């Protein structure tokens, strides 16, 4: 590989991991010991927000409630993300294993995997793997059960509190925070909710030890991560890469020679234009991502890209709070009006103010993050918005 920084890693999909041994040896350790190892690894949540996984587990373990839950978030709805599907297809046991380790730490007897409706075709195989998992737990005399819950086509249900609402049989409308799930989650009980990938990495950290994970990445973004690469690239697909690379390094490897922008983190993420490739790091210190990496070459209209994202938000907004419900719609209508020439180009500034207001006043991450793509696309590709 010409690019000497971009390191391909193979932690997650490694096939000769002895599942039972890892689980058994981890279950022999004390909870403090487990939390410390996870803390030492520096693992942060892979679902977007990047909260340290060890702390999430620790806070939940400290709650006095008898009933607690571990929930695996497999709602994967962010445009351009498809790595959780691949993980669940290839290494489901490790996902369940991560849940089982968390269950020991927080003392949960029940776990749930919330699978998006679009992935229902995975269900028969997952159920089979789950049965195998339960029989291994029986052998090890571990009292923990996982149930798979199906979603029904709503992006907002990936937001943790909306996901709990959905599991409880309601509309997927996010709750006010605090309280956070570590205190009040599913059935209002303390709950750890982790992304699929976070749970696999947790499991692998107990296979390899924290040091192996910590060796990779940077101070702010430890380890490796699974990226979903799509758009104008000769090699779309799923890649596990060490964290800490710049967008330039990424484009060198995956671009088609004519990349003008990379959207990092999907519709709710940031658009990085060519002039910023060099100094933008992919990770928590630069542009964070749940794994979605979309490349656009110079033949693409960034107006179309933004319009597509806004249409997505308008449809997927749960409609609960006004800034988001009305804001998403007005942003879309606004850029349409500018494009048609019905509004002067300065109207874009007013729209930016609206996006900024949404960032401050919307109830959940959906409405708050619309400004990310809106600002980064409008500011960097203004001409394309107007002409």
């Amino acid at each position, binding site marked *: 590989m010409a690019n000497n920084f971009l390191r391909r890693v193979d932690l997650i999909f490694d096939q000769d991991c002895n599942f039972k041994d890892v689980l058994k040896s981890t279950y022999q350790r004390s909870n403090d010991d487990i939390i410390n190892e996870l803390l030492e690894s520096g693992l942060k949540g892979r679902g977007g927000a990047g909260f340290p996984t060890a702390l999430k587990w620790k806070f939940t373990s400290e709650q006095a409630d008898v009933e607690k839950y571990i929930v695996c978030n497999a709602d*994967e*709805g*962010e*445009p*351009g*993300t*498809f790595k*959780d*599907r691949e993980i669940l297809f290839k290494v489901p046991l490790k996902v369940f294993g991560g849940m089982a380790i968390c269950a020991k730490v927080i003392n949960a007897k029940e776990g749930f995997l919330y699978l*998006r*409706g*679009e*992935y*229902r*075709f995975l269900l028969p195989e997952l159920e089979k793997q789950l049965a195998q998992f339960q029989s291994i737990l029986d052998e090890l005399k571990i009292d923990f059960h996982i149930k798979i*819950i*199906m*979603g*029904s*086509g*709503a*992006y907002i249900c990936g937001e943790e509190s909306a996901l709990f609402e*959905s*599991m*409880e*049989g*309601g*509309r*997927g*409308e996010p709750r006010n925070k605090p309280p956070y799930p570590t205190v009040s989650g599913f059935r209002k009980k303390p709950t750890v909710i982790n992304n699929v990938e976070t749970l696999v990495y947790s499991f692998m950290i107990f296979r390899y030890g924290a040091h192996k994970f910590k060796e990779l990445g940077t101070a702010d973004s430890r380890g490796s991560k699974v990226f*979903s*690469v*799509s*758009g*104008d690239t000769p090699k*779309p*697909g*799923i890649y596990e890469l060490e964290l800490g690379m710049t967008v330039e390094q990424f484009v060198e490897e995956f671009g088609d020679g004519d990349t003008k922008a990379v959207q990092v983190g999907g519709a709710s993420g940031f658009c990085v234009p060519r002039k910023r490739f060099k100094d933008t790091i992919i990770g928590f210190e630069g542009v964070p991502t749940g794994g979605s990496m*979309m490349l656009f070459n110079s033949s*693409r209209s960034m107006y*179309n*890209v933004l319009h*597509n*994202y806004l249409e*997505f938000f308008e*449809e*997927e907004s*749960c409609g609960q709070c006004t800034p988001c419900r009305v804001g998403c719609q007005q942003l879309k209508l606004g850029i349409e009006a500018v494009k048609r020439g019905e509004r002067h180009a300065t109207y874009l500034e007013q729209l930016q103010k609206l996006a900024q207001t949404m960032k401050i006043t919307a109830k959940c991450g959906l409405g708050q993050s619309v400004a990310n793509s809106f600002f980064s696309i409008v500011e960097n590709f203004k001409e394309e918005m107007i002409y």
Partner: protein
Amino acid sequence: MTETKELVKRLADKHGRSRESLIPILQGVVQEERFISSETMTEIARELDISAATVYGTATFYSFLDTQPRGKYVIRVCKTISCSMKGKHLIMQELEDLLKIKVGETTPNKKFSLLETNCLGWCHKGPAMLVNDEAYTELTPEKVREIINEYMNK
């Protein structure tokens, strides 16, 4: 017992009668009948002893819980940017020509409904679509013709 009553009872026996059983039951109805009628919602409300408004509120929130009549095979074409960039409009055109309906419509023989949907998670293999639960990727107009032909003969 009417058919609806029987179906709801069977699903409630399987998934339980608590509030948490509501979505699995609604999903079960969609799997069997492709949509949830207002009659069915009322029946579910009765069976679970919750208000019909609650059932309606939940059912109408989710895009896969159809509350309008749909065909036996519901086609959902991904309309997210990555699939658009790979020629989604050609796929849609082909489907509309083959089925002689527009997006959002159902064929008169109630066999197919044609819908659009947000990211299906196949961006690296676009364009993509679902036919009921089955995913089809890297579509071309020719491939679409073959797939639809197969379903037409089912």
